[in-house]
């Protein structure tokens, strides 16, 4: 009898790997049976995880770290043995503002869009109606990528612009009613706003930090220890799901599965577009192909790089106004568990990076890196402003962020 794991998720396209691992039978073949529980808020996904109603959860990566550090609740150590995907969010502005920042037929250039937006932000602040951005959660990569971009463009978050938490299904409404001027959200929610003519996509978060960590599979540390064997089976199943997911030949079938009422309960056309890296930027416009908008499998995308957890910690310090603390930094870094990933996949032929940390943002071009089996090619992982994050000097990086 296969051991059962219960996994909580939010109806977003990047919940695809556990869903497809189940639907294509990869999990059963690996000897683990999956029960998926859909919720509509991260608070509920986390509650179920913390109180034992689920074994694992599809989670915004910073929330796994915040929970471990006890931000907002008593600390509970979480572990991330697998990254569910990189990037995949977009920044959508109200059409009038999109026009002001020069949005055209393609995605913008982050620095240029940011410079034009800084102008709008100044005007609006002077008029006593500062720009407001909707993000899905304080502890989300959406929030961190958006703030990183704004700050690097000279727009000081919380001083020049305001933020509001907006659940993904309500993003289009919030743009329409003017509750927010822009949103940073995953798909299909940008497309829903575009379809209703209330927003225009100006940037993909992959343009802010290419190959930036997005959703993760998180478990309570004691549960990972207790169910280690089943979790490793799940990791193998999700890797197979990833390989299946990125094959364009399977796109239509996978979109149809994800669109089902039990999963995303959404429009299969919009979902198919998103998972094939295609975006309709504005209503009535052309569909744009932006390669690697979502990044679910290649280049060991699911490997939990400790340096990425450390980067998320730097942003938490920055935007929560916390003091840098070496013990916290270490706790945050330890949330990501490359050791579990390696032990699950050893012997499967999946590339296993030799290092557990890397200098984030340092690759400008295709670079060969060492794996346990030889080498693997990683493409650019740059931040749009060209800065690099060296996990050996977290304090220095935070200080330089200002």
């Amino acid at each position, binding site marked *: 009898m296969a051991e059962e794991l219960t996994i909580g998720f939010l109806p977003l396209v990047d919940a695809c790997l556990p869903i497809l691992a189940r639907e294509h039978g990869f999990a059963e073949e690996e000897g683990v049976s999956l029960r998926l529980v859909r*919720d*509509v*808020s*991260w*608070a*509920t996904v986390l*509650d*179920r995880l*913390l*109180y*034992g*109603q689920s074994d694992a959860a599809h989670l915004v990566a910073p929330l796994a770290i915040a929970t471990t550090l006890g931000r*907002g*609740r*008593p600390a509970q150590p979480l572990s991330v043995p697998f990254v569910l995907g990189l990037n995949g969010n977009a920044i959508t502005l109200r059409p009038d503002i999109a026009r002001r920042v020069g949005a055209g037929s393609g995605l913008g250039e982050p620095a240029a869009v940011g410079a034009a937006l800084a102008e709008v932000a100044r005007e609006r602040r002077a008029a006593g109606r500062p720009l407001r951005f909707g993000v*899905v*959660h*304080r502890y989300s990569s959406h929030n961190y990528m958006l703030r990183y971009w704004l700050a690097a463009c000279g727009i000081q978050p919380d001083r020049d612009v305001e933020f*509001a*938490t*907006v*659940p*993904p*299904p*309500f993003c289009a409404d919030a743009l329409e*009613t003017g509750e927010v001027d822009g949103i940073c959200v995953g798909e299909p929610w940008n497309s829903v706003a575009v379809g209703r003519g209330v927003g225009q996509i100006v940037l993909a978060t992959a343009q802010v930090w290419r190959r930036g960590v997005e959703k993760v599979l998180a478990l309570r540390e004691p549960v990972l220890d207790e169910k280690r064997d089943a979790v490793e089976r799940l990791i193998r199943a999700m890797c197979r799901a990833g390989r299946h997911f990125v094959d364009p030949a399977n796109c239509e079938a996978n979109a149809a599965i994800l669109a089902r009422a039990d999963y995303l309960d959404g429009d299969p056309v919009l979902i198919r577009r998103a998972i094939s890296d295609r975006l309709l930027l504005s209503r009535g416009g052309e569909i744009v192909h932006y390669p690697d908008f979502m990044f679910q499998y290649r280049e060991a995308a699911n490997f939990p790089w400790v340096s990425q957890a450390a980067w998320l910690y730097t942003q938490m310090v920055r935007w929560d106004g916390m003091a840098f603390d070496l013990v916290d930094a270490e706790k945050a870094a330890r949330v990501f568990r490359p050791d579990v990933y390696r032990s699950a996949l050893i012997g499967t032929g999946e590339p296993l990076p030799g290092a557990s940390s890397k200098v984030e943002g340092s690759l400008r071009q295709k670079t060969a890196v060492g794996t346990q089996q030889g080498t693997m090619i990683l493409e650019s992982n740059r931040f749009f402003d060209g800065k690099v994050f060296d996990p050996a000097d977290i304090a220095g990086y935070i200080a330089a962020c200002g």
Partner: protein
Amino acid sequence: MRIAIVDESTARASVIREGLASLDDCEIFAVTERRGLVARIEEIAPDIILMDLGNPSRDVLEEYFAVSRALARPIAMFVDESDDEAIAASIDAGVSAYVVDGLAAHRIRPLIDVAVRRFNAFARLQSDLAEARGRLAGRETIDRAKRILMDGRGLTEPQAYTEIRKAAMDQGRRIAEIAEAIVTAHKLMGGKPVGET
């Protein structure tokens, strides 16, 4: 004690409100509108907020609590680890509670118990309703299937029903499933819609 019930289902909100009305010394507010939620909560200044776990605005409310400058800042009841059983019961029932810090546990507990009971009662009501609807839909389909057999094979109504029941027994399926199959097959064969009486 001021209690806010945040629920987009007005029906459920009133079922809960009714239950809480029996408690002494409680002022109850139901918030069923998603828009303006935070402003409304600020206005009510509740000691306790009850919210269903399936409400997407939980993230919005938690963010508000995190940044609120109000002195009495509510925290999720779940973080009070003292009572695992109560927590499990409320997650099972699908209700979350936010309680102003410092509110005595003996005042909260009876209230949460009532809320959990009411949430469960409402869920039962819903599933009874869904079942009744399902039974009704099955009945309609069976009537249509009988009509198809009566028209197509010149059977009487009792004969048509016997045929359907026999097929169900032979195949180990439910009568409604066989009826469904007959109606679908009839449609596929280009038959005229039946039974829209």
